[in-house]
């Protein structure tokens, strides 16, 4: 009881702070100078309609590289934390047979999985033209993998192939960044390929390629992380 009163006081005090922030907030009427630079220069310099993708992949590409590194570290440390305990020999087959996940989930997965993967690929490939990009599409693909694992609990993912795919995508991503050092303005600069026609599917320099590599990498990485939790 005392603890609940204490908790209520703490939450109420935070509520007062937040209410003060909300009441004092003035909605923006125009863009900050930095945002205005991004909004006006992204279409001109990168030939890219989606400004958020431009910020993520080119202007702030280094942050994205760091983010990919964080994901990689998470996959590695989850694997370390959840590595199966060395079971005594003969115990390996002692797992109880998994229950069937039910008619609805199985049929639903069979119907929806191709669509989910297709949608993920669409979101990845259209990241430079409309809302989407590598991270978002990769997450959609991984959510399809979650559905697959729910519907068929005995599925074994090709973990080796996923690891190789993911490492290759990472290496290619950094190599594209290095190409930017030699042929354009700096590391992860996407302008070493021609900008092409504004709004066309193949346009905006190396951004679609980087986006696809990111999507492959994130999709594979998240699938591996999810798979680790089954052990």
């Amino acid at each position, binding site marked *: 009881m005392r603890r609940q009163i204490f*908790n209520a006081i703490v939450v109420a005090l935070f509520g007062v702070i937040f209410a003060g922030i909300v009441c004092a907030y003035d909605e923006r009427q125009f863009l900050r100078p930095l945002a205005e630079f991004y909004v006006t220069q992204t279409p001109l310099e990168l030939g890219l309609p989606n400004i958020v993708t431009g910020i993520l992949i080119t202007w*702030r590409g280094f942050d994205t590289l760091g983010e990919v590194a964080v994901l990689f570290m998470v996959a590695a440390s989850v694997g370390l934390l959840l590595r199966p305990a060395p079971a005594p020999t003969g115990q390996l087959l002692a797992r109880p047979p998994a229950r069937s996940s039910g008619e609805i989930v199985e049929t639903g997965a069979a119907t929806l999985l191709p669509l989910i993967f297709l949608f993920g690929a669409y979101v990845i490939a259209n990241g430079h033209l409309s809302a989407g990009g590598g991270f978002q599409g990769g997450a959609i693909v991984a959510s399809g993998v979650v559905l697959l694992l729910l519907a068929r609990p005995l599925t074994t993912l090709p973990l080796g192939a996923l690891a190789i795919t993911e490492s290759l995508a990472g290496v290619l991503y950094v190599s594209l960044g290095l190409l930017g050092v030699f042929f354009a303005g700096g590391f992860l600069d996407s302008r070493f390929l021609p900008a092409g026609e504004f709004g066309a599917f193949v346009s905006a320099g190396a951004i679609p390629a980087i986006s696809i590599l990111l999507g492959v990498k994130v999709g594979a990485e998240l699938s591996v992380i999810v798979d680790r939790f089954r052990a």
Partner: protein
Amino acid sequence: MDFPVSHLALAVGFGLVLIGLWGLLSHRNILRIIISFSLVDTGIHIVLVATGYVTGATAPILDDTMGPGEAALNAVDPIPSALVVTAIVIGFSVTAIMLAYAIRLYKAKGTLSIDAFTESKW
């Protein structure tokens, strides 16, 4: 008076943060604490995105109806959106690590109640 988009989104985001805080403080089950962390996370994402809103503006994606010239006047601030994409991925990573630790703690003590783990309590 226009519809107060920013204030509504800010209030919703801060509300989620408060619910998450309450959950953090009052629940003893580690899984529920992790869910509360996710709520705080999501609330902060909504707050961040809300601060990028510009009155009457639309998504910062150029198309036929919004050419490069008008974008500076009609687009919302793209920087918070880009930051939140990063923050979502980091939030996912933190949640994954927390869940992995929860599994390890369960294996160690056979319970998920935070009251069972008193070794590092001062």
